[in-house]
């Protein structure tokens, strides 16, 4: 079983939802980033999602875009991410996931990327600009290294497409809560519940709800329909305001 699934099931067995914080690599700066990761890990993250910065992050809202562009300006790249993770391999309790866009991964070389994920203890990958139709060549390169390609689905994904995504999927399935980009929302669309039910019927791996999630209270209405929550923009804004990751994680305990 993929380590991401193991960790989410672990949280579940304690009656909790799995916590999946997202931070762009190198945010808020090179040094502090690794300290934030440690804090998130200690505070009970099941999976830590590390953003690979890209110049044109079409699926992201302004908060994530600004943070990633700053990391790019600071020279963050895949080599820096992998080197840092290799140095710390075995130190995290949480499973690790890389999230980004295809082009930087493609230029790095898919086979090398898969091998480096394994060497760095990364067990999952999200590519925001790659639907099912284009995903075979990436899967073939990374799965032999034990790295799962996490499917993203949403409010407009038909049950038929969900089934295609679920075939051979491992780790977890990422359910995008809004038709739009990442970023905090005051309220979540009503249709989520019904689509989450569909997803639950289709996938036999955990379902994580993400995009627009700000506070654990928002999750109450989805009890039983999802297994983990992803939060990015809210965490980034919190850190930008000078607060610590540990503080952010408290209400979720």
């Amino acid at each position: 079983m993929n380590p991401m699934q193991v960790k989410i099931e672990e949280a579940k067995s304690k009656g909790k939802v799995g916590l999946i914080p997202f931070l762009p690599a190198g945010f808020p700066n090179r040094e502090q980033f690794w300290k934030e990761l440690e804090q998130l890990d200690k505070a009970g993250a099941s999976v830590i999602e590390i953003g690979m910065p890209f110049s044109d992050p079409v699926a992201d809202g302004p908060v994530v875009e600004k943070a990633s562009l700053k990391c790019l300006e600071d020279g963050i790249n895949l080599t820096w991410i992998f080197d840092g993770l290799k140095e710390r391999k075995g130190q995290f309790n949480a499973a690790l996931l890389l999230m980004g866009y295809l082009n930087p991964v493609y230029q790095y070389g898919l086979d090398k990327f898969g091998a480096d994920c394994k060497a760095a203890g990364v067990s999952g990958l999200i590519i925001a600009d790659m639907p099912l139709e284009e995903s075979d060549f990436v899967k073939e390169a990374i799965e032999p290294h034990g790295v799962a390609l996490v499917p993203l689905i949403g409010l407009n994904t038909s049950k038929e497409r969900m089934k295609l995504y679920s075939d051979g999927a491992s780790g977890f399935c990422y359910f995008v809560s809004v038709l739009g980009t990442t970023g905090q929302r005051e309220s979540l669309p009503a249709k989520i519940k019904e689509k989450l039910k569909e997803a639950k019927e289709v996938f036999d791996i955990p379902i994580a709800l993400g995009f627009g999630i700000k506070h654990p209270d928002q999750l109450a209405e989805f009890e039983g329909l999802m297994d983990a929550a992803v939060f990015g923009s809210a965490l980034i804004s919190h850190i930008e305001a000078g607060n610590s990751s540990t503080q952010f994680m408290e209400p979720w305990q």
Partner: protein
Amino acid sequence: MKKGYFGDFGGQFIPELLMPPLIELEQAMETILPTEEFQTRFTHMLKENVGRPSAITYCPNLSKDLGLDLWLKREDLNHSGAHKINNTLGQGLLAKMMGKDVLLAETGAGMHGVATTVAAAMLDMKAVIYMGATDVVRQAPNVGRMRLMGAEIVAVESGTKTLKDAINEALRRWLSDQETTHYCFGTAAGPHPFPTLVREFQQIISKEARQQFMDRNEGNLPDVVVACVGGGSNAIGMFHNFVPDESVKIVGVEAAGTGEPGCYNSAPLDRGTDGVLHGMMTKLLQTEEGQILPSHSIAPGLDYPGVGPEHAELQACGRVDYTTINDGQAINAFKLLSRREGIIPALESSHAVAYAIENREQLQGKSVLVCLSGRGDKDLGILDEIL
């Protein structure tokens, strides 16, 4: 071959949330486009509103100066001033028949924004236009036109504030508004089915030009066909019906920027590498690490770090030659065509005209048919600063 691919290029590299509207569009393309209703209405609009067929014009003075036969396909004479209208009326009508009521578009030079706004007005739809903040300033006359005709204009402040970023923001908007909105993509690039759909609407350029040229030249074809390449829509339209004619040399002209060593350019076919941006595998200006590089051209409509995937394939298989013209050479062509023929070309199209001027020695005695993709009124502000 995989669906939506031209050789190794093309595809649908886009968030899953955009797949349903892309699939819906592809189905509409297959079911609505071939209907008699669509074809009749579209042909009628092209004739009555755009002014098609557009003329082809022989340039006697420049031909004499250069020692070749220079012909222009006059897309600058279309209503709203460029080839862009062929595509926006096609996509607009398709969207209307799909039941959408908003046309969303990105624009660089503003010509596509203007053309989308015209289509929206004609079809009683709403236009929402994303434009890089830099281009809003560079192409102010077009911004004024769009506002007058009722478009909502969103100035994009992110990234390089040009076309690339306008596309990013428009894609983000489409994610949210997909039920009511059609993304009226402006060039033969982006995710499948856009490259094919846009080519379908633009190929009328070469369909007309090929016949018109033969009618004027005792059934002979031109020796050389030339068009400027930004995203690649006027060029693919100009090339499409000449591709099977083996005797015709086809040339695409990209923008070399200032031409100084190390400067930015907009020539991904000439200087780029394979990569993925805006939904397609294509040639891109990018770093070794896959970050997209800023582009530069004095012609805002060419200022884009990528190019439509069919051009990448036409280059790879050797059918079309792609070359570059720099800002200075384009300005020279802009002035020459204006003075010698009384035709003010868009700065984008000036790149294609400049090809004939700069290569006149190799082209002696040959017939050269250039796609004059648009008119240059919009560029007088840029030129004021330079001339």
